[in-house]
C-alpha cells in the first residue's frame, strides 16, 4: 500500500508539471495583447509605453524564457503577481476558502440527497415515488446549470425575495447553500439514477437472493449486501463529478457574484495575465489529482478485493 501511494504521488507530480507546461503554452497562445487590454477601450498607448509595460511583465520574451522564468519563481514560492500588484498566493488564500465552502456544501448535498433518494427509489422500484423521482431527475439532467442558476436567481431572489440575488462579499456558508444546490443539481440527478440502478442490480443479484433464502433480516441484507456493493462505484462517481463541480463553479460564481476561485481564474484569463492564470489553474489541477488519488485509496478500503500492490 505504501509503495502504491508513493508511486501514485510521483505520477501526480509529473501530471502537475506537464499540466503547468501545457497551461502556460495555452495561456501564451491566447489571442490578444494583454497590454492593450490594460488600456481599456480607448487606445491612446504609444509604442514606447507599450514596450515598457511589456518588458515589465516579461511579455516581450520568447515562450520558453517566459516559462523558465515562471518556473524558477514558482520553486522559490513565488506564484507570480497580478497586474494589480497582488501576489497570486494572496489571491489563492482569499478566493480558495470561498470555493472550498461552495464545493463542500455541493458535495454534501449531492451525496446525501443523491444516495438517499437513489436508495429509496431503488428499494421501491416501480412505486409512485420512484416514477416521480425518475421524471424529475430526467428534467434536471436536461436543464443546463446556468439556466437553472438564472431561474433560481430571478424567481427566488427578485420575485419572491426569499434570498438575495447575489452573495455578499463574505460568502458565508448560509449564503452559499442555494448556489451550491444549483451547482450540485446535475450531479444529484445523476447520482440518484446511478444509486438506484446499483440498488436494483444488487437486489436482483444471486448473493442477495441466497441471503434471503438463508432467512437473514432485510435490514441486514440492505446494509451488508446491498449498500456496501452500491457504495463502491458511488465513491468513484463522486470523485469524477468533483472535476465537473470545479468547472461548473466558474459559471455559478459568475451568476451569483461569488468572490471565489472561478471568478479569479476568469478575470485573469480575460486580462491575459499568463502567470496568475497558470498558477490558479494549476491549483485546480493539484486538487483534482489529489481528490482522485484519495478516491482510489478509499476504493481499496471499501473493496478488499482490490488490494493494490497485492499482485507484486
Amino acid at each position, binding site marked *: 500500500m505504501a509503495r502504491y501511494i508513493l508511486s501514485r504521488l510521483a505520477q501526480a507530480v509529473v501530471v502537475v508539471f506537464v499540466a503547468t507546461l501545457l497551461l502556460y503554452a495555452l495561456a501564451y497562445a491566447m489571442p490578444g495583447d494583454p497590454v492593450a487590454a490594460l488600456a481599456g477601450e480607448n487606445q491612446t498607448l504609444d509604442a514606447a509605453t507599450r514596450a515598457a509595460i511589456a518588458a515589465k511583465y516579461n511579455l516581450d520574451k520568447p515562450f520558453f524564457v517566459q516559462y523558465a522564468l515562471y518556473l524558477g519563481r514558482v520553486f522559490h514560492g513565488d506564484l507570480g503577481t497580478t497586474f494589480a500588484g497582488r501576489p497570486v498566493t494572496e489571491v489563492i488564500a482569499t478566493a480558495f476558502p470561498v470555493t472550498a465552502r461552495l464545493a463542500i456544501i455541493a458535495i454534501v448535498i449531492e451525496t446525501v440527497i443523491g444516495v438517499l433518494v437513489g436508495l429509496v427509489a431503488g428499494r421501491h422500484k416501480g412505486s409512485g415515488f420512484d416514477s416521480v423521482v425518475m421524471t424529475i431527475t430526467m428534467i434536471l439532467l436536461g436543464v443546463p446549470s446556468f439556466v437553472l442558476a438564472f*431561474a433560481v436567481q430571478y424567481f427566488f431572489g427578485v420575485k419572491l425575495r426569499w434570498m438575495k440575488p447575489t452573495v455578499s462579499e463574505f460568502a458565508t456558508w448560509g*449564503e452559499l447553500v442555494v448556489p451550491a444546490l444549483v451547482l450540485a443539481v446535475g450531479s444529484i440527478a445523476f447520482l440518484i439514477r446511478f444509486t438506484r440502478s446499483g440498488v436494483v442490480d444488487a437486489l436482483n443479484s444471486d448473493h442477495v437472493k441466497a441471503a434471503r433464502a438463508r432467512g437473514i433480516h432485510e435490514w441486514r441484507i440492505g446494509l451488508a449486501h446491498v449498500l456496501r456493493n452500491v457504495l463502491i462505484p458511488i465513491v468513484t462517481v463522486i470523485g469524477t463529478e468533483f472535476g465537473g463541480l470545479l468547472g461548473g463553479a466558474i459559471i455559478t460564481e459568475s451568476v451569483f457574484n461569488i468572490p471565489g476561485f472561478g471568478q479569479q481564474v476568469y478575470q485573469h484569463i480575460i486580462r491575459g495575465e499568463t502567470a496568475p492564470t497558470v498558477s490558479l489553474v494549476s491549483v485546480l489541477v493539484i486538487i483534482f489529482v489529489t481528490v482522485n488519488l484519495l478516491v482510489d485509496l478509499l476504493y481499496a478500503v471499501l473493496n478488499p478485493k482490490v488490494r493494490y500492490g497485492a499482485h507484486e
Partner: protein
Amino acid sequence: MTTKNTIRKALAALATGALLAGVLAGCGAATAKDGSGSGSASASTAAYNPVSVSGTAPGGDLIPTNSQESGKKVLVWQLFDGLVDVDPDTRKVRNEVAESITSDDQQTWTIKLNKDRKFSDGTDVKADNFIKAWTWGADIANAQIASGDLAVIKGYDKLHPSDGSKATATEFEGLKKVDDYTFTVELTSPYSSFVNLLTSVTFYPLPDSFFKDPDAWRKNPVGNGPYKLQKPVDEATGAYLDLNKYYKGNRKPHNTGLYVRFYTDSSAAYQDVLADNLDITSPGGADLLTAKDDFGDRLVEPTITGPNTTLTFPMWDDFWKSSNGLKVRQAISLAIDREEIVDKVFNGYAVPAKDFTVKGLYGWSDSIKGSDVLDFNVTKAKALLKEAGGYTKELPIYYNADGAHKQWVEAVANQIKKNLGINAVPKPTTTFSDFLEKRADHQFTGPWRASEIPFNPGLDDMLRNVYSTSGSANSGSEWTSDAFEAKLKEGWQQKDTDAAIEKFNEAQEILFQDLPAIPLWYTKIPSVYSTKVSNVHTNVFGSTLYLVEKQ
C-alpha cells in the same frame, strides 16, 4: 441576447414545480438573514449607509496616469479632484482645485490653486503635487498607460522618447512653479482646449506620500477627492469609500459614502438592483431590453450620448484609398437604415449619428456640411456604387466577439447586402485585444466596428484623439489629412470658444469628404437604480455619484 432573459423567466416557473421549491424555501430564509450584515465593516460611523454601485475589479493600481480602464476610473473619480471638472448641469468646465486658469496666447497657461484644498491624509494640495505627478506620469521609466495625454506639454519627448530609450531629463521643461499655489504650463503649440483636457484623470495631483514610497501608496491610495478609501480595495469583492473630511470642492457628497461592488456578470448586478440589493448599475445586453419595463422612472438616460459607433475603414489599403473606394464607402453609408437598427437592435437606446463626435457636447451640430451622407437613401447609394464600377469582392466587417456587437454588425451586413447587393460578411475576433492586434498587423481588409467616446467635454477631443496625428490617431485607419490638421490647429489658436468650435466643425466637413469612418449612432447607456436612492444622474465625464441621496 434576448434568449437568455426569456429562458430565465420561462424557467423561473419550471423551477417552482420541482421538488427544489421545498428545499429552497428552507435555505432561502436562512440566506436572507445571513446576507443582511453586509455593511458590518463600517461599524466606526453609525450613520454610514453607503450608496452601492456596480463596478469591475480595477486590475491594476489607481495611479491616475495609469487609469484608463472604466473599472479604475469609477474609483479614481471619487478619490481625486482635478484642477477642473465638468458641471453635470451645464456640461461646461468649472474650476475645482484651480482658482483660475488663464492664458494670453493659448500656449502658456497660468494656473492658480485654491489654498484651502487638502488630501485625505490632511496635507495641502500645492503646485508641486501637480508638477511632480505629471512629471512622474510622463517618465517612460514608469510606463504609465495614459502618459500620452501629457504630450501636449513642452518637454514631454525628453521624459518619454518615442523610440523607447530612457528619459534624458528629470524635470518637465514646460512646467514652472511660480509659488506654492501657482504654476505655469507651456504647451508645444497653442491649444485652446487645454482647459477641457485638464478634466481627464491624467491631470490629477498626487500627495507627497506617493513620491516618498510609491509602492506603499499603491496598496493604500490617498487622494484629494470627495471620498477616501475605508480600507484597501479588495480585488475580489469591492471597495468601501468614506467621506474625505477635508474636502472643500463643488462635489460635496449628498450621501454618507459609497460601496463599489465588483461584478463579472452585468446581469447579476441588474438582478441585485431589481431586488434592492444594490443601488445603481448600468444594464447591458438583454437586460437593456427589459430595463424600461422593470424600472419605469427609476431609469435615467444620459444627457450626453455616446460612444459614437462607427464603421472604420483600413485607409492603408489601395482600394479604400482610391476615389472609387470613397464612392463605395459613401454608398455603404447611404444604404444603412440607422433608424431601423436603433429601434430594433438597441430598443431605442441609441440615436442615429449626425457627426464624428457625440451628441450633447457644447457646440455639437446635426447639420455639418456633408453630413447628408449619413441619410438613408438607397437610390443615391446604388448610383454611387455604379459610378465606382461596383464592388464584387466579399466585404468583411470585423468586430470583437467579447463585446455585445454581433447583433448590430449582422443587421448592418444584412442591410448592405439587401440594399446594395454587396456580399457583406461579419467577421468576429475572439477578444477585443485580439481585434486590436489583428488591426495593428493590417490583417483587416474591410471595415471594422469602433466606438469612440470623448475623454473631455471639448468638441475637438474626439477629432484629435481618434483622427488627428497630433493626438494618438487611434482610429487605427491610418487616414491623414493636412487640411484636417490645419483646421484643428486654427481652432486651437482661438481664444473664444465659439470661434474655436466653428473651426472644429469645419474640420469635420473634411472628415465627411474623405469618410475614413462611417458614423452610425450614438449609444445611450442608461443607469437603473433601487428604491432606496434618489437624485441619480449619469455623466460621461466624471462621476455624479456624489449627488445620490440614500434613505
